[in-house]
């Protein structure tokens, strides 16, 4: 079957044999975007989190057929070196990653959170950011999430927003 969607602003049409193929496989192995990680394959760790129409989704447990007509954002599309997303900027400033493997998933989950709750409390973070980091960078992540909220708030142009 042919499945069409947008990924990081680009339209793609993919020939897919099995519509139940996890979106994660398509993104990593067919589209070669390696930023989204495979951790557990069971929707348990969050390493594969990306955004679909702005909502955080665990792509290892998301059949590619459901992505038809939708807009996907991966860590590669969140921002870039010249123009980082507030979450990326905060992550750099707080030097969050250790091995780094889990980080894109956390960053995507955080990007989704800040769209819903611009100034999350620690409790909001505890409830919404439930990914797993084997290196235990949770403490720095929490600081970075608060910093990202601050950067995002400051970057909103009060005249044009």
């Amino acid at each position, binding site marked *: 079957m042919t499945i069409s969607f947008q990924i990081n602003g680009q339209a793609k049409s993919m020939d897919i044999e099995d519509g*139940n193929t996890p979106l994660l496989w398509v993104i990593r192995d067919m589209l070669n975007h390696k930023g989204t990680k495979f951790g557990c394959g069971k*929707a348990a760790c969050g390493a594969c989190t990306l955004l679909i129409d702005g909502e*955080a989704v665990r792509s290892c447990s998301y*059949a590619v057929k459901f992505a038809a007509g939708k807009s996907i954002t991966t860590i590669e599309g969140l921002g870039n070196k010249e123009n980082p997303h507030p979450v990326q900027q905060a992550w750099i400033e707080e030097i969050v990653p250790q091995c780094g493997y889990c980080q894109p998933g956390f960053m995507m*989950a955080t990007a989704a*959170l800040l769209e*819903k709750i611009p100034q999350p409390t620690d409790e*909001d973070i505890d*409830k919404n950011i439930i990914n797993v980091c084997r290196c235990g960078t949770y403490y720095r992540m929490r600081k970075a999430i608060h910093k990202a909220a601050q950067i995002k708030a400051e970057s909103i142009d009060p005249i044009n927003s």
Partner: protein
Amino acid sequence: MKKRLHFSLLFLGLVIFGFGLASSTGYNTYYVSETDSVENASSSEAFDKMMQVLTHERCVNCHPNDNVPKQGADSHPHYFGITRGDENMGYQATNCATCHQSENNDYSGVPGAPEWSLAPDKMKWEGLSRVEIAKSMMDAERNGGRTPEETLHHLTEHELVLWAWNPGLDANGNLREVPPVPKDEYIAAVKEWFENGAVIPSE
């Protein structure tokens, strides 16, 4: 589940005279039998069959009494600290749909069905007896304002309810357990119970 229609409290007259279900006027809820008469035998058999399903963990896991969804045949609390949230769907950025889609995912072992969510808090069934569950589901105050017809529809046609017979594979690749009564038999029993006046036997 999201339907929020209204129906009345007990309409005793109808109940006493055994008229059974009222029409779509929406009056009437249920009739609690004080004796096990011969006439009630078939209705009570239907009730037994229906309740074997409604007390099964496939149903009760999503009708918790503590805002925590349950998982598995042992009804353990949902992993990862998931709780009800404001709208029965988890939290703002991490909610049911972060992991559960409209179909089972047999690659990951994550179950799914349309409108995947917890039953609202008022519909808590966990820990209740079968009679208490039946009273709760027929009580407009606790069943989301459903008329008996709407309750019948929920029990026999709602895709999320019928998912119980197609629960897919778990994270270890094993088939999840289905309720102890086959789907068609269950649907027939529910219809029979409603047609016979939705008689809830005494405890």
